[in-house]
């Protein structure tokens, strides 16, 4: 990954951006274009050195291993509402979440022809089986199924997961034709730690002054990281933090909400705008959470794969698809809500996402137990009418402002 720019010979776009709005606009262009222009640019710049591109299915994949090779890991979030499901329809049934179907559609319609492989973690029944469907439809491409351990409290899990990571290291090295050294891995871990710290910093600034850091805009900045090498994304985020402070926005009355359910399939960007227009200030969310998966930095010394395994088992944020072990999802969510002075909780689950839909029942009960108001609705990748959500959100905000 080192040495090549995602934007080829033309330099990066963030240094030249003079305003926050311009930077956000450029990030949107890069992040939501399912022709993947930055990825194609990286691939052609890396052609001489045999650079490879690997698509990563949510929620979490250990991308440091790709980054340590001559490889660009790209987070795939389906068709981002921009493609019709046509070919994938005959391969995955309509009662399955959009992201599985539209990601397959991307592959079947050559949107991913700059990609050399695909990695799927064992987050749910759909993802697990998708790995086999993918391998069957793209026989000659690199497809890696990663088992993320669920028995996180077992001593055996650390050794097992380190083994999984070692297997990934070996196969990625075969893909690129060069071994992946511990030194390169440690460097990648440092880059990713920095990336997570910058994303967390954006989140912290938003929580402190939500009107200054609108959610859909910081979402776009984070989304640019899906299609850029992480060191470039780090530079972009540093620029963003500087520009964001420079542009002063008026304070507005809004209800502070936490958003949950969007850890895998992503809602349309408009949904975030609708929520904020309705008077919700999203101060905590699980959007694109894979990039912020660890609550503390991964150890930068010692055995890098053991460090990644240890982080996965004990330092993650809690989502419906990773096991909390001795921790509690309910308590974790309520603690975060207290810390961020959250006044209301929004469960926005993707249609047909079983893990989100199961958890929403338990989390809702826990929230109601402490009298935290809850709004629940479902979304789909290709959703285009938001009136119902807008109305629900406005009513939710009013009920909190006037009755809580």
């Amino acid at each position: 990954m080192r040495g090549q720019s995602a934007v080829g010979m033309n330099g990066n776009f963030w240094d030249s951006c003079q305003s926050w709005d311009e930077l956000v606009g450029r990030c949107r262009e890069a992040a939501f274009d399912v022709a993947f222009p930055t990825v194609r640019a990286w691939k052609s710049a890396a052609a001489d050195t045999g650079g490879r591109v690997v698509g990563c299915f949510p929620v979490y994949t250990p991308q440091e291993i790709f980054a340590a090779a001559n490889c660009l890991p790209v987070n795939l979030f389906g068709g981002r509402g921009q493609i019709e499901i046509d070919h994938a329809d005959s391969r995955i049934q309509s009662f399955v979440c959009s992201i599985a179907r539209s990601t397959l559609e991307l592959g079947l319609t050559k949107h991913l022809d700059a990609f050399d492989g695909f990695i799927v973690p064992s987050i749910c029944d759909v993802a697990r089986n998708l790995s086999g469907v993918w391998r069957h439809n793209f026989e000659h491409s690199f497809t890696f199924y990663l088992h993320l351990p669920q028995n996180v409290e077992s001593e055996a899990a650390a050794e097992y997961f380190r083994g999984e990571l070692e297997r990934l290291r070996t196969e990625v090295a075969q893909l690129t034709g060069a071994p992946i050294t511990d030194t390169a891995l440690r460097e990648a871990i440092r880059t990713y730690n920095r990336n997570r710290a910058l994303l967390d910093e954006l989140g912290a600034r938003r929580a402190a002054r939500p009107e200054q850091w609108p959610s859909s805009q910081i979402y776009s900045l984070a989304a640019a990281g899906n299609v850029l090498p992480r060191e470039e994304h780090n530079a972009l985020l540093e620029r963003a933090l500087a520009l964001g402070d420079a542009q002063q926005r008026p304070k507005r009355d809004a209800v502070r909400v936490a958003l949950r359910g969007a850890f895998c399939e992503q809602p349309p960007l408009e949904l975030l705008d609708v929520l904020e227009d309705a008077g919700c200030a999203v101060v905590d969310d699980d959007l694109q959470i894979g990039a912020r998966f660890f609550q503390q930095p991964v150890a930068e010394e010692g055995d890098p794969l053991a460090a990644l395994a240890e982080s996965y088992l004990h330092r993650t944020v809690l989502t419906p698809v990773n096991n909390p072990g001795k921790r509690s999802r309910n308590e974790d969510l309520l603690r975060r809500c207290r810390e961020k002075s959250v006044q209301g909780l929004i469960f926005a689950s993707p249609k047909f996402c079983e893990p989100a839909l199961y958890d929403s029942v338990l989390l809702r009960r826990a929230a109601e137990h402490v009298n935290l108001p809850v709004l629940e609705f479902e979304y789909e990748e290709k959703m285009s009418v938001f009136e119902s959500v807008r109305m629900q959100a406005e009513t939710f905000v009013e009920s909190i402002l006037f009755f809580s």
Partner: protein
Amino acid sequence: MVGNYQFQGVGRDFQKNLLGAWYKRLEDAPKTGTPVAYLFISGNIGELLRCFGFELAYPEVNALQCGIKKIAGDLILKAEDLGYSSDVCGYVKNDIGLAASGNRGPFGTMPKPDLLVCNYSGCNTYIKWFEALAELYGARVFLLDVPYRRTGETLRREDLDYVIKQLEQLAAVCAEISGVKFDPDRLREQLEYSRAAEDLWVKILHSAKHRPSPFDAFFEAVFFMAPIYVLRGTKECVDYYEAAWKEIEERLAHHIGPVSDERFRVVMEGPPPWPNFRNFWELFKRWGVCCVASTYSKVGGIWDFGMRHDPTRPMESLAEYAVNCYTNWDWSLRRSMLKRYAEEYHADALVIHSVKSCRAFSVGQADVREHFSKAESLPTLFVESDLADPRYFSEAQIRNRIDAFFEALEHRRVAGAARPAPLRAGPASPTKSRQA
């Protein structure tokens, strides 16, 4: 029938009695002070838990009982009232609805669990299910993490080692809860029974290679397989399969099978629609269809390719078993299995019953239809409904699809254009001497 046949109906009746007695023991567990563990069918390590005196309960079996007794619909609605989405697994909702109704079902009253063993072989929904039950009952959960079996014929050493280490940890948890010390001899004794039952079960499964098949490997297998899933490791279970084999042997001797005139032999992929089980079977019977092999009968273990529980390698063979459940297999392995079944059992077609509830089964089935109907030229029928939720069973629509499919198949056969390989005669039926 009684005049000519000594053993017909034994498989069904004996099974019913065994399950009735088992449910009675469960109902009595609070009175007898017997600890109760809940676990799942796929990859269940019941033999290990029984070493500690646990009585075993299987929420999936309760759910299918409610389905077949037609009370699942109401229980599912009850769970939806509690906040569960219409799009999540009907088995889970059935169980939550049951718990909210005092745990009283057609099988009696289910005792509360002392331990929830989430042996998740090929189903992440299992995890979400037991997370909900843990909260509901305040019971301890042990999550036995069983890695998915990936491509390749050999089992991965690291997967087995990981499962074995967790089994040892589970044994320690069981000892702590039950106060019973682990007795390796008791485990070996049970595994000996498991192996004996598995040998007999495989004989029954293989009998469907005969023409006519003496046994429906889907519609009848769901009854015949119950003891090996819930009572495996016991002497009664072996007794059951000895009796069931006699029934099959008798059918072979008399050249009889589940349909009076076997016209089509199919491989069935997917679970049954429990609330409409009879109707669904009838839709096939009227075309003289016999399911000669099925994948649903392998959800709790794939023994017909040689795998066995082994008393000389207790933990190792428990781990091998747990990894080898159908939905814990990658699709390349599942496709090979379907292909092998179609060939070895001389099937005319593949029928896929895709259920919304179980994504572990269904995601990938449409791709399988594409593969078999195109690359393998095996006529493939695809029908959709659900395993628990009666709202998804549209009889008229399913009947139309089934009728159209077998009509076309019959037409092809009459026109001489049918696929030649599956129509070859199967192995000869047993000779008359066997009857003597």
